[in-house]
């Protein structure tokens, strides 16, 4: 089946994808296809010269994004995408450097780099894909897992508070901060475009389904169910102080542009 799908000769984004690497490794129902799609469409609309755009990823499911995008692309070590991107940007300021990585990569093992890049207002754009869990390694609890949510290492429910990523990076000094879910593709694309064109440190958090692990363990068994949850529970509150945008288990998801 997959062979038939990927043998289709033309896709609107073919020029920006490493087609020879398809099919990708992401599970059915995963939100990462939506994220890559939104990024590439935003990139085209931004009119940036694609030869002057580099993508840097860390490790994890989202970390694989760099490998599918046909730009100069770097799949680095776990958590270190942001400092790698910082060095790349400083060495060649002509480049637009975009980090695409997951919540575990950016907020746990790379958390120190995240806040320091925001503090020094590094001129890079970060797309932080937050699926509430470590997907690649089999669904373990992470720094963004909502309290009480079940994972393969918190089967009785997570006992720790999660990071509120927009609040964290806004407090650290980021120039542009937004959050959307994969259910608001139009607004997500617009936001990524704004982030790409913003001078300084910009971050877009993208809440994205992981039905294989997060959904399965928390009564949202398919990507579709997770998308319906996002659709029914997202509330746009652009301009609010992101400290009021904390995410609770199965609760409302405050989305919008918080800093611009």
């Amino acid at each position, binding site marked *: 089946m997959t062979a038939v799908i990927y043998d289709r000769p033309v896709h609107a984004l073919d020029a920006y994808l*490493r087609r020879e690497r398809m099919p990708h490794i992401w599970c059915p129902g995963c939100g990462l296809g939506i994220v890559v799609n939104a990024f590439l469409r935003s990139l085209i609309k931004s009119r940036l010269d694609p*030869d002057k755009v580099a993508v840097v990823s860390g490790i994890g499911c989202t970390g694989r994004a760099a*490998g599918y995008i*046909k730009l100069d692309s770097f799949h*680095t070590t776990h958590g270190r995408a942001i400092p790698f991107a*910082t060095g790349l940007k400083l060495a060649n300021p002509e480049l637009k450097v975009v980090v695409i990585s997951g919540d575990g990569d950016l907020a746990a093992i790379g958390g120190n780099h995240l806040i320091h890049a925001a503090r020094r207002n590094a001129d890079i754009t970060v797309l932080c894909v937050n699926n509430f869990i470590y997907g690649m390694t089999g669904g373990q609890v992470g720094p963004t897992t909502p309290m009480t949510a079940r994972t393969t290492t918190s089967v009785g429910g997570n006992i720790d508070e999660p990071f509120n990523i927009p609040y964290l990076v806004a407090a650290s000094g980021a120039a542009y901060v937004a959050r959307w879910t994969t259910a608001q593709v139009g607004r997500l694309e617009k936001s990524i475009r704004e982030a790409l064109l913003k001078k300084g440190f910009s971050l877009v958090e993208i809440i994205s389904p992981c039905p294989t692990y997060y959904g399965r363990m928390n009564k949202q068994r398919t990507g579709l169910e997770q998308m319906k949850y996002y659709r029914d529970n997202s509330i746009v509150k652009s301009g609010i102080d992101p400290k009021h945008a904390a995410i609770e288990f199965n609760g409302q998801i405050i989305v919008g542009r918080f800093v611009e």
Partner: protein
Amino acid sequence: MSGDDACAEGAISAGCRFFAGYPITPASEIAERMSERLPEVAGTYIQMEDELASLAAVLGASWGGVKAMTATSGPGFSLMMENLGLGIMTETPCVIVDVQRGSPSTGLPTLSGQADMMQARWGSHGSYSIIALAPDSPQELYNLTIRAFNLSEKYRLPVLVMTEAATGHMYEKVMIPPVNEIEIVQRRRPVVPPEEYLPFQPDADKVPPMASAGEGYRVHVTGLTHDERGYPAMTAAAQDRLVRRLVDKVEQNSHDIIDVEEDGLEEAEIVVCSYGISARVSRIAVEQAREEGIRVGMLRLITVWPFPEARIREISTQTRAFIVPEINYGQISLEVERCACGNAMTVPVSHMGGGVHSPDEILRAIKSVLK
């Protein structure tokens, strides 16, 4: 000037235009001087949040087309092992200076050690080969920092300069030659258009030409095992091809990389083999022994990795013993012993760090063999 300052000047002479680092004794003076010097030559200095980030930024800068370096000491060197592996795997030219201090852990921050030598060789996980140079004076820190950049650009890998607190903080006269007298090597660039370019297809010397980001080649670079296109290849065959090449490109070019200083090895009954500050002290002991009529040769390792295996084996058939003074509990002495293949005895002269050997200790070791 100090050894640390000479190191920074060597980097500037070599064309280094990016430094990312984190303060650490006894290497901080390198960062301090680079923070002053780089803006004068349109370069960039950035102080990162830790050594993980420092080396990550250096690798990023190298892919941005700029010669880049960092400098640290043991605790920071430990943190850099992660991205050292990424640098090896992605064949990223850069220079890492380790001004060694007493260890393990926080150890003796202001005092010398040479106990990171095996970490330099094997510290990051996996099979790989590395290049490490060991200067014995501020002048040589200047010279070898330039050589480290040249080797890293030529062979596309991180190159280590392994010095120690005593040399880094030593003040001596350093001659900086005119710019046109310094041999500078630039990385090989692709000569084919982007559609024909395979970023990890090596030339005959096993080193692939390197494109930088922003040149239109749209390279993919990954720490995963990859094929010639740079794409992940999760097979034993791809692993075999890649890992063998990463090792072979160093080992098969070792004749070009290895540099040793030999003195009086002909008919030497005993050979003192050492490096860095310990070699400097050894020289005094060798001279004293010669005055007493003992036939002692001196082999100073300027390149420590790759190890001058063939030369040591050769010498081992012509001498009774190797005396190996070093500021650790025996690291390079194990290599000497391995390469001597039992032909000659190996006598380590260990100093645990915090100072340097006294020539007497080395002299005693020389005489112990003659008893």
